[in-house]
């Protein structure tokens, strides 16, 4: 079995133009970190025609060889990756799941199925090793041809100036300086950029240790693709366990070690594999892919924007992994920032729009921290009384449905709804793409994803329809789509039984305005072209 010796691609270091010519070059956008978030951001910019330079200290994707970090990509992330052009590759390679089972020492307490939603274009979750996503993004960036990834380029110093950001970079050929009109630190939870600037991430440490044990398994009967969560597992000393299937017949087992047991001893390969063996008994063949002990903590910086420098993903915020909120929220950070930065670079919006990035994504991070904190406390009760309450919840959940919502092994990642603000007129939720009968999706019906778009329920009068169609020629464009039949200047999407309109919360005559990141920023009655222009301008901060 060669799964355990998986080789990740290595990328060659090339000296940069700066090094060749011995001068400092000012780039429009420099991204620090070619991880999940940095690559997503670079790809989003490239899809919108903006070149960037990505600096990465390593020469490969992933961390610690074949160790995967994030494994679980939520519907919103899949929708983003559809727009960036790697969604299908992810679904093809990954494991789509919707059934989850919750167990304790007595066996199964209950099961749930998230796939009841027949209208949804994307499954609730796809499990895939993070390095595959990064790999697909690197491929896609090469295809788009606008991004220069500089491998083995380590940022060692950061200077914030009023009109640019400068980085000192170390390479195998020595150090050089690079400048950027705009820079984004996507350099992970220990963010060297953040630390070099002395920004305090307000860390709150926990003592609940876990041991990730990714194992390659052969000889299993073909079984359903389900996620299993033990609140208490008898083969793990009564502690918790997560069991997820990823690509290549590799399983993520995440064993809760707790406070009392010695994490270093428990993470020794023979101890970890003995626990894995209890999960996959003979005759299954198991082999370790990676064993990583970890202890979670939460942190968030005060402002995700510092002049011309932004922080995204783990560099800006970290929380415990319950609910797969880390990677998924970082992907949303990237999407939120990308369209705003492009709007400013293209002269379509003032600088103020970029301030809304922190105003929207920091509350999203605080929301995730609050939610994951409750899950951590359920999984690691802090007192005899808390443990007793959990015992009662589990005992009731086994027999009665009412207690199941009280079992909190993690609330699965859902996109944050931005409250009404200077940037959002109404609603603020993300619109989940809808699967149409012909196999297309609702958002496919627009000529462009990632733009301002309007969905109208029912056609307006022909002269107004012509004026709405003309919005496609605006800068930036607004593309309109009519839910309904007939012919006219605007594209149609049939909705004979009104199911799509109902899902979107529209009654005849109403419309909704989508931002480039698929968040709904306005709902309106009988829109005309001027009101839509005004709302778009409001959303861009043109005031």
């Amino acid at each position: 079995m060669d799964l355990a010796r998986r080789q990740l691609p290595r990328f060659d270091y090339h000296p940069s133009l700066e090094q060749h010519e011995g001068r400092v070059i000012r780039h429009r956008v420099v991204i620090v970190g070619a991880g999940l978030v940095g690559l997503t951001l670079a790809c989003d910019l490239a899809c919108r025609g903006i070149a960037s330079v990505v600096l990465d200290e390593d020469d490969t994707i992933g961390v610690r060889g074949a160790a995967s970090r994030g494994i679980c990509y939520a519907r919103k992330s899949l929708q983003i990756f559809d727009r960036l052009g790697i969604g299908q590759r992810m679904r093809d390679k990954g494991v789509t799941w919707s059934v989850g089972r919750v167990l304790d020492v007595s066996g199964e307490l209950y099961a749930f199925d998230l796939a009841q939603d027949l209208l949804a274009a994307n499954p609730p979750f796809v499990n895939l090793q993070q390095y595959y996503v990064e790999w697909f993004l690197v491929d896609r960036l090469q295809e788009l041809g606008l991004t220069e990834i500089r491998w083995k380029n380590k940022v060692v110093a950061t200077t914030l100036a009023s009109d640019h950001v400068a980085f000192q970079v170390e390479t195998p050929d020595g150090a050089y300086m690079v400048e950027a009109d705009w820079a984004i630190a996507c350099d992970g939870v220990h963010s060297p950029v953040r630390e070099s600037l002395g920004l305090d991430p307000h860390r709150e440490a926990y003592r609940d240790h876990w041991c990730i044990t990714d194992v390659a398994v052969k000889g299993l009967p073909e079984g359903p693709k389900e996620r299993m969560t033990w609140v208490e597992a008898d083969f793990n000393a009564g502690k918790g366990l997560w069991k997820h299937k990823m690509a290549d017949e590799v399983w993520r087992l995440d064993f809760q070690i707790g406070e009392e047991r010695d994490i270093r001893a428990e993470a020794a390969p023979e101890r970890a594999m003995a626990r894995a063996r209890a999960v996959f008994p003979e005759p299954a063949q198991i082999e370790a892919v990676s064993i990583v002990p970890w202890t979670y903590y939460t942190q968030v910086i005060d402002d995700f924007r510092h002049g011309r420098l932004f922080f995204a993903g783990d560099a800006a915020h970290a929380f415990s992994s319950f609910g797969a909120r880390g990677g998924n929220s970082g992907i949303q950070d990237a999407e939120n920032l990308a369209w705003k930065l492009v709007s400013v670079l293209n002269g379509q919006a003032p600088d103020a729009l970029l301030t809304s990035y922190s105003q929207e994504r920091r509350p999203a991070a605080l929301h995730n921290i609050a939610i994951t904190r409750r899950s951590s406390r359920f999984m690691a009760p802090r007192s005899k009384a808390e443990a007793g309450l959990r015992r009662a919840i589990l005992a009731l959940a086994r027999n009665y449905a009412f207690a199941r919502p009280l079992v909190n092994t993690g609330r699965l990642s859902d996109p944050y709804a931005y409250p009404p603000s200077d940037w959002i007129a109404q609603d603020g939720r993300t619109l989940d793409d809808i699967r149409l009968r012909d196999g297309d999706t609702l958002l496919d019906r627009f000529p462009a994803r990632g733009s301002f778009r309007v969905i109208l329920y029912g056609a307006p009068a022909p002269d107004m329809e012509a004026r709405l169609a003309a919005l496609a020629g605006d800068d930036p464009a607004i593309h309109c789509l009519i839910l309904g039949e007939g012919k006219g200047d605007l594209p149609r999407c049939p909705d004979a039984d009104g199911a799509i309109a109902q899902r979107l919360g529209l009654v005849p005559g109403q419309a909704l305005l989508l931002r480039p990141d698929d968040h709904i920023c306005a709902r309106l009655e009988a829109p005309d072209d001027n009101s839509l222009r005004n709302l778009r301008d409001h959303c861009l901060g043109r005031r």
Partner: protein
Amino acid sequence: MPFTTEPTLSKPDIVHAALLSAMENLDETQLDLFKDSLILLLMNQLSDHDTVMACIEAAAGLAVADQA
């Protein structure tokens, strides 16, 4: 149902006796499980979020006041 501290039980002596008899002969672990389960079952009967929160607040206030 809205939070109330006025009497609403029709047979207070009967439910009190039933509580005592349910707790009789339980060891400490069983007793905790009984009390915690009862709280959760009752909360679900109330269902109204504000009423449940008001009950928790009232009980917490009493516990702290009693200690002082």
